[in-house]
């Protein structure tokens, strides 16, 4: 993975000192809270419902064992002993004190980490496929591209005060594991159909929030060397013309929608033509320098199958279940990418205690060349695991309550922190996730249901990505009480689609019943091997609406 040179390091250190000084100027009144708020947000410091919150950047979801250990130390020393992994591959702490934040940033800088631009109206963490470097069908590792964009976007003098946040994601496979179609800019590395050269398909204008939209292709094939200049052109048009009168209408997706895609594209091409490519674009030598950090680790030459792995699966059904759900195919024979689920049944989604972080750091060091990935599903991955080692890892994970075999299943729920933590929320989301997980706790039933992505947001800002959940849940308020709208048919992959509401909002305690109804329809209707989303697309929403309506009517009768 990337290692800072002295320049990257110096920048981050100077940033810490700048923040220290900003706190001082807030305290002595030189900066108003409004001014300080935007500046502290640009270091990932939010004020939430109960306390400040710190969002630490984990660039494209890759971190080292050493970094994970530091995150554990910070959780213990400066927070309440745990952290929360997010839908943009970052980590959040919920209880830091402002007076301690400069010291926290020092500790982060010690391991090449920071909170730069994880919030604010600027370019955020560049996310990427969590299987980067190990997916068998990737054109090339997307992370050098992501790292280049990270550096280019860091403290960019022109683009630090945009109309609103700006999110970029990068993949290099046909399968989209980074939801690029719902990002402001989505980048897919692909091969030119004729020359075979690697280049970029660029999408613009995807996003969630109040008005979700799927991104559109603005360039089918952009040569690799032209990336930064083209992205600058997009950002320049957005910076100049994005709306600043209404924060709910300020994302680039709204500009694309209001101008019309063709007019937006024409503006971008107009600016792009004026930019001096050679000044802005990266040196090929620099691209190579960065790429060298992502060279494959020292894999062993192994047979494709591991005898001990197969034997353990035979002998231990619980292990076989784990192997079935939590392992992803790997480009190297004899290896796998192992997902550690942070979705314990009946507990908050995406959280890890300091002890658990250390267990993961340790396992990564011993079994995964010291590297860990964070997925936008709020889980962790050990990317370079030998099949021979999976059983031993699983046993250690079990001891740490990290061996839940539910990746991709109905209890692998994405949930934003919601009103339990977040100032913007209109309802709680975590208890809904917990209740659903408890209802579907039975492992055999989960496997029977198969792949089903539930995503929960505690307000219309949609940080839980509910619009692209196979089942989406949106927490609102009705009559002074929390009320939940359920949507159906969303998809965050290359087959991206936005969910549609099934009916009126329902009480929180009815949500597990509602999910059961939807699952029952699916199980009754499915053909061999069909997934939930496939059945939804085949039979349409009406059967599901009818089943959902039984819950609504039952509630109305009970209230009468």
């Amino acid at each position, binding site marked *: 993975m990337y290692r800072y040179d002295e*320049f990257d390091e110096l920048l981050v250190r100077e940033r810490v000192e700048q923040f220290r000084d*900003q706190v001082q100027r807030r305290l002595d009144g030189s900066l108003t809270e409004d001014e300080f708020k935007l500046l502290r947000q640009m270091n990932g410091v939010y004020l939430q419902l109960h306390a400040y919150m710190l969002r630490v950047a984990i660039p494209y979801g890759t971190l080292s064992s050493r970094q994970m250990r530091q995150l554990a130390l910070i959780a213990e020393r400066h927070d309440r002993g745990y952290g929360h992994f997010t839908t943009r591959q970052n980590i959040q702490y919920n209880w830091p004190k402002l007076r301690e934040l400069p010291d926290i940033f020092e500790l982060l800088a010690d391991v090449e980490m920071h909170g730069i631009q994880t919030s604010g109206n600027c370019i955020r963490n560049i996310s990427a496929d969590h299987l980067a470097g190990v997916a068998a069908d990737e054109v090339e590792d997307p992370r050098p591209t992501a790292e280049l964009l990270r550096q280019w976007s860091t403290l960019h003098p022109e683009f630090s005060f945009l109309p609103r946040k700006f999110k970029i994601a990068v993949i290099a496979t046909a399968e989209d594991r980074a939801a690029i179609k719902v990002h402001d800019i989505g980048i897919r590395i692909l091969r030119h159909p004729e020359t075979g050269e690697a280049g970029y398909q660029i999408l613009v204008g995807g996003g969630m929030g109040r008005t979700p939209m799927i991104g559109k292709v603005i360039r089918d094939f952009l040569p690799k060397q032209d990336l930064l200049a083209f992205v600058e052109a997009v950002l320049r048009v957005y910076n100049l013309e994005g709306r600043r009168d209404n924060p709910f209408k300020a994302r680039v997706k709204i500009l694309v929608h209001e101008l019309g895609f063709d007019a937006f594209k024409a503006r971008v091409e107009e600016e792009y033509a004026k930019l001096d490519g050679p000044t802005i674009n990266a040196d090929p030598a620099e691209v190579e320098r960065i790429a060298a950090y992502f060279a494959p680790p020292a894999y062993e030459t192994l047979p494709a199958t591991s005898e001990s792995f197969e034997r353990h699966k035979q002998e231990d059904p619980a292990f076989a279940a784990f192997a079935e759900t939590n392992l992803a195919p790997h480009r190297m024979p004899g290896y796998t990418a192992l997902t550690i689920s942070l979705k314990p049944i009946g507990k908050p989604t995406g959280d890890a205690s300091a002890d658990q972080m250390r267990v993961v750091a340790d396992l990564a060091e011993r079994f995964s060349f010291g590297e860990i990935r964070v997925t936008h599903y709020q889980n962790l991955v050990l990317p370079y695991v030998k099949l021979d080692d999976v059983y031993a890892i699983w046993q250690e994970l079990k001891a740490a309550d990290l061996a839940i075999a539910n990746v991709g299943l109905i209890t692998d729920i994405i949930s934003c922190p919601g009103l339990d933590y977040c100032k913007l929320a209109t309802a709680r989301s975590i208890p809904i996730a917990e209740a659903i997980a408890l209802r579907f706790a039975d492992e055999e039933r989960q496997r029977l249901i198969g792949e089903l992505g539930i995503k929960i947001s505690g307000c219309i800002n949609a940080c839980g990505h509910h619009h692209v959940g196979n089942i989406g849940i949106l927490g609102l308020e009705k009559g002074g009480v929390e009320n939940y709208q359920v949507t159906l048919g969303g998809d965050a992959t290359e087959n991206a689609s936005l969910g549609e509401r099934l009916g009126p909002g329902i009480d929180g305690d009815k949500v597990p019943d509602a999910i059961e109804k939807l699952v029952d329809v699916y199980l009754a209707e499915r053909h061999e091997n069909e997934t939930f989303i496939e059945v939804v697309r085949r039979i349409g929403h009406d059967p599901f609406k009818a089943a959902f309506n039984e819950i609504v009517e039952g509630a109305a009768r009970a209230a009468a």
Partner: protein
Amino acid sequence: MPLLDRNGWKSDEFARYDAFFDAPAIIVPPETLNAALAERLPQQRIGVEIPNTFRPDLLAPVQDQLSLVIVQFPAFSDGRGFSIGRMLREQGYTGTLRANGRLVPDEFAFARSCGFDEIEMSEEHAARMPAEQWLAAAETFSIAYHNGPDAGASIFARRRQRRSEAA
């Protein structure tokens, strides 16, 4: 109004007028700019103040005649001026570039990297933010991923330099 550059507070040699006026250094709005340039007296310096919705390329035909361009920043969080400044420099404007608005010192280095030479602000705003804070802010970063007068050559440029020295 208080005016600041890399060396601290300075006096403003320019004055604002609605249209051409017989004074050594005048600032006019875009609507009366062409007329003012047509009437310009020998040695007279003319500047224009533009809102941050103004397309900078509209100034290209006359930019060689301009001594000063002022870009308005209606709020410290409104970064349109940074693009406008950079675009003016990219299209070859070499005169003085001024930002007018409630910027905070933490934006000074960004403004300078986008081509701004000076910042104008209200008395009340200046009272809250003494010159030392602005000058210290300009020196906060000795390094950056983009070229600028304060941090010097970008990190990318420095790495390129290193490579060519090593070669």
